[in-house]
């Protein structure tokens, strides 16, 4: 029987039994619901809420400049002319109008329910000042329209020394989400690999299996099978997030950028999974009881947690941080940090290439090393086996 068929059989067993568990199914559905739900919440709370402004009396003439100013300041305003000020006040109270604006000799009178939105305050202030300015220009014999055109022609010529990526905010948000997903998936599925190895040792089924197949085939099948299970879940979550984000407009960046970011996340997860799953499998083989898995895998979980915590605390305020950049090309840490950095953007290509080459090289090295540890240790039950013993045996 070919090795390929044996590995396929063992991998298929992992995929079938693990995908069949309620934990996996319900967990996946819940996470999709949370991600899609969050997107909708952000959509409803954050964007798309045009302020409804009621204009009364002379203020009705401000409708056009109000909308124009709002657009330049990045706000959205919907204007309504009202004749009955008393009825309009009631509308402000019940929320169908956000503000009611009337003209006063010194400026504008603004009625709100609780407080004036900061964005709208800026818009209204600008409009009021402009009107006062126009009046003053006219009084002095000038032409307000001409002054307006001149003002509109004034340009700020901004020269950024280190220009921010376009859509920086969204990219940062995606980077953090992608970082969490990759981090949690590596931590979770790494543990599952170690527990799976110990399950076979503890139940002694490994003795039956190893009389038929090679230890490395069993290990390969387990890592690949659990990898498929993990990847399916991660891809589903990222896909659901991308679709929901783009469909609701919460993600305004081009779809190609979103897809590229997620594709990088998947690639780094796959590399990180192989890297860590091999280590977790070897670690699991050293012990014979589920209670001992935690102890033997602690160094590995730390290697995942620490760079992630550093990344997630430094990158939001300082995306170009040199220390994080350095960590992100070190193979053990790259899988958590690189996808975050790539999502945020502005990573020099050379750093990506170096990180990829180093990580792949480490995975290849680990295949041999962990395979040896696993093969030697997995047959031995009882007390915990040291790595040195497992390598030497």
């Amino acid at each position, binding site marked *: 029987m070919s090795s390929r068929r044996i590995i396929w059989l063992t991998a298929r067993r992992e995929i079938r039994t693990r995908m069949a568990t309620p934990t996996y199914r319900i967990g996946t559905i819940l996470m999709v619901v949370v991600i899609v739900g969050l997107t909708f919440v952000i959509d409803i709370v954050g964007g798309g809420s045009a302020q409804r402004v009621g204009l009364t009396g002379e203020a009705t003439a401000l409708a056009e400049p109000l909308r124009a100013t709002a657009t330049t300041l990045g706000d959205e305003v919907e204007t309504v002319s009202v004749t009955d000020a008393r009825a309009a006040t009631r509308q402000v109270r019940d929320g169908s109008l956000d503000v009611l604006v009337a003209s006063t000799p010194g400026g504008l009178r603004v009625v709100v329910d609780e407080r004036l939105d900061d964005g709208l305050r800026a818009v209204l202030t600008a409009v009021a000042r402009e009107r006062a300015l126009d009046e003053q220009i006219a009084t002095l014999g000038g032409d307000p329209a001409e002054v307006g055109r001149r003002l509109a022609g004034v340009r700020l010529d901004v020269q950024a020394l280190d220009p921010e990526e376009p859509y920086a905010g969204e990219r940062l948000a995606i980077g953090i989400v992608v970082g969490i997903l990759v981090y949690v998936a590596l931590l979770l599925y790494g543990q599952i690999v170690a527990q799976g190895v110990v*399950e076979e040792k503890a139940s*002694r089924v490994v*003795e*039956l299996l190893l009389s*038929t197949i090679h230890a490395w085939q069993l290990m390969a099948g387990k890592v690949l099978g659990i990898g498929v299970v993990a990847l399916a879940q991660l891809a589903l979550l990222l896909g659901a997030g991308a679709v929901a984000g783009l469909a609701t407009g919460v993600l305004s960046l081009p779809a190609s950028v979103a897809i590229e970011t997620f594709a990088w996340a998947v690639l780094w997860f796959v590399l990180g999974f192989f890297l860590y799953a091999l280590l977790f499998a070897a670690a699991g083989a050293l012990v014979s009881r589920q209670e001992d898995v935690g102890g033997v895998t602690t160094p590995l979980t730390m290697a995942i947690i620490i760079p992630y915590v550093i990344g997630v605390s430094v990158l939001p305020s300082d995306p170009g941080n040199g220390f994080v950049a350095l960590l992100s090309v070190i193979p053990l840490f790259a899988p958590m940090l690189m996808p975050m950095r790539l999502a945020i953007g502005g990573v020099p290509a050379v750093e990506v290439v170096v990180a990829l080459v180093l990580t792949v090289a480490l995975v290849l090295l680990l295949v041999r090393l962990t395979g040896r540890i696993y093969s030697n240790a997995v*047959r031995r039950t009882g007390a915990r086996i040291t790595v040195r013993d497992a390598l030497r045996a």
Partner: protein
Amino acid sequence: MIRRVVGAGLAFHDLTKRYGDVVALRGMTFTVEPGELFGFVGSNGAGKTTAMRIAMGVLAADAGEVRWRGQPLDLESRRRFGYMPEERGLYPKMAVTDQLVYLAELHGLAANDASRAAAAWLERLGVAERAGDELQKLSLGNQQRVQLAAALVHDPEVLILDEPFSGLDPVAVDVMSEVLRERCERGTPAVFSSHQLDLVERLCDRVGIVRAGEMVAVGSVEELRTGGADRVEVHAPAAPPGWADGLAGVTTLSREDGRSLLELSDGADDQALLAAALATGPVHEFARRRAPLSELFRHVVSGTPEEQP
């Protein structure tokens, strides 16, 4: 007797294994011929499990090897073996059928054949109604039946079963015995270890007795008996204590209620014994007693106690 072809069977040749200072096997050698049911008996720690684990490739021997049809075993040939490890092991959280189908496929069966074989064995072993349940939900006895099904599901050429009867209820013991006999009639050699000596005696074509990592006696139960001394039980109520003491080659093993159990060494004259018994008074019974395997076992195992591992 069938003429044995050299190299046709499963040959354990000069197996040696030590764990640190402890010698588990010292040159263990024996052969199981095709169609032979071989019972492997010996005290705990005598090396039965070690020998079987070496045959299955779970352990490596320090020296010696196990051959099947004249060839040293490798993974390919072991794939056609059926194995029941001493420490039972299957996936606790996997459904019974899935488990058997998986193992059958790993042993080289195509998916269809694997499903068919799994269903057939579960039926045969009386656990068909639990086919869809997780293994851990079955009683220990039923788990044991599934374990046997796992050893048989791929229609193995050779069976190596470590304590297959331990933990089975009498019905399951019967089914298991029947299955073993049936496999042997079809030419499958089977080695199994057991502490249930009456079972071994009833079932096995040949028996091997192991002591301290060595095979100390091999043969059919009959052959083993001829090696041992004859026993005679005499019921002579009037016989005084020590009535048989003067006879050459006769040892009194026990005496109770006028019944004496005597051992006759090779060449001792049983007629002289009978005459001596009659001289004491009436003799109601004078019967040859066949030593049970357990007796032979005790005799062989305690024979020349060497350093126990």
